[in-house]
């Protein structure tokens, strides 16, 4: 079986999971207060940031801090639990497919879920920005090229985080630990972003990238900037290691 058909099978498995509903609801909740408090964006001009940029970046920061990582933890639960209940995974493991391939297919689905959530959020951003534009008669809409760059960076920086979450769920059989460690690891990311060793902590990458963008957009606010070295080598190493470990140990408990 080739890899693509494996991935498409994995998508079929989660077709009726209603996970998109959760993504959608969280995006609505994310942008609703921003629309209601849209006039506050004008007060941030003192920091040297234009209202439309402030509107966009505050929303993105709100999502990258908690909701995005947390819903990815939920995504790992979805991918592992749909098969553990009713012992579907044992049937999958009896098929002549390499477990590493199976694991990679699931990881591809997880990254796609991340991309879908980012896209839903971006869609909601355009809707809410359009509403604000109507309400306050000020051009809140930003160019799609700029937004594409931002969400592209957000997505790329989230891949190491996804790899770590996926490794947790493949390694740890007791769901309370994989979920608990995943959720608990989000909480200290604000602290860790303020330290010099932030690049050792993949879970904080998306939030760090968005915060550094905030610093770029606002003239009077200094935030730590992304320095590609040693971040990229460390991130690459961590991603490869996490994916490698999860492929090695995927289905380990079931095969015993």
């Amino acid at each position, binding site marked *: 079986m080739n890899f693509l058909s494996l991935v498409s099978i994995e998508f079929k498995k989660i077709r009726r999971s*209603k996970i998109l509903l*959760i993504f959608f609801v*969280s995006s609505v909740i994310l942008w609703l207060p921003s629309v209601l408090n849209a006039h506050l964006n004008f007060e941030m001009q003192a920091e040297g940031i234009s209202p439309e940029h402030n509107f966009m970046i505050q929303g993105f920061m709100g999502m990258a801090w*908690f909701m995005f990582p947390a819903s990815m933890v939920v995504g790992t639960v979805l991918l592992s639990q749909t098969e553990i209940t009713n012992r579907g995974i044992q049937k999958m493991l009896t098929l002549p497919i390499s477990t590493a391939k199976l694991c990679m297919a699931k990881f591809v689905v997880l990254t796609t879920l991340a991309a879908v959530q980012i896209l839903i959020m971006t869609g909601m951003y355009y809707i809410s920005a359009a509403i604000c534009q109507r309400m306050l008669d000020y051009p809140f809409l930003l160019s799609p090229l700029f937004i594409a760059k931002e969400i592209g960076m957000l997505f790329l920086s989230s891949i190491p985080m996804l790899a770590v979450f996926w490794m947790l769920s493949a390694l740890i059989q*007791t*769901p309370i630990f994989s979920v*608990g460690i995943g959720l608990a690891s989000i*909480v200290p990311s604000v602290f860790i972003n303020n330290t010099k060793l932030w690049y050792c902590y993949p879970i904080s990458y998306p939030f760090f990238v968005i915060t550094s963008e905030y610093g770029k957009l606002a003239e009077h606010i200094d935030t730590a900037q992304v320095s590609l070295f040693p971040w990229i080598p460390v991130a690459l190493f961590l991603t490869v290691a996490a994916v490698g470990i999860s492929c090695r140990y995927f289905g380990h408990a079931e095969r015993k």
Partner: protein
Amino acid sequence: MTFLLECKKAKRIGFYPALIGSSILAAAIPILNIIIRGEIDVTASKSPLQGLLGANWQLMTMLNILFIAASASLLYHTEYADNAMQKLYTLPIHEGSVFYGKTLFISVMSLLTLTVEFSALAFCSYYWYTPENSFILELCQNFGYSLLLLLPCVVLALLISEFCQSMWMSLGICVVCVFIATMLPTDQFLLSLFPFALPFQMLDTAQTVPYLCAACTELLILIVTEKIAVKIRRSIS
């Protein structure tokens, strides 16, 4: 009886090590915070404890409610995963007693977590500051207040988990609720009454009595909702 059964079930899903882990993590926050930042300036607040709570309580509560959300969805997930729930329905026990058993169980566990956390706060107060004589009383008051405000969150998390059979749905909804709670402003009374936002409140506000009343009312409303919802579900299925 259901409470003891819950204790046994929880043991098998590895609940207790996770509980100890999350309590220690939350208790480490104030201690690490002081060690990393140097001493926290508490002169502006009424007492060392209030200063410490102000600096750390947000993160500690965040961990507490995330743990409650995860454990509530897991406790129900173990029942639904292999159709244990259907077997429970055939037993000569009241249908609601499973829910009450779980509520009592998580409440007792939250009490243990809060005990560990407040011990850490007490340790910080005695080690780095000089608390007044009334410190123990103040600590107990804060402890009771936080515990009571945590209970509506426990009941709501369990209520969500009871009605979502798949674990990612219950966990997802709980995570969205936590997200809403982090977005709501804590200084607006009506908005902060959302059960997941209540635990973020601290005792130093002048609105202690309204919050206590609100927490009790919410508990009552949630329990009544659960009763009605169970009746509706039974009549439909």
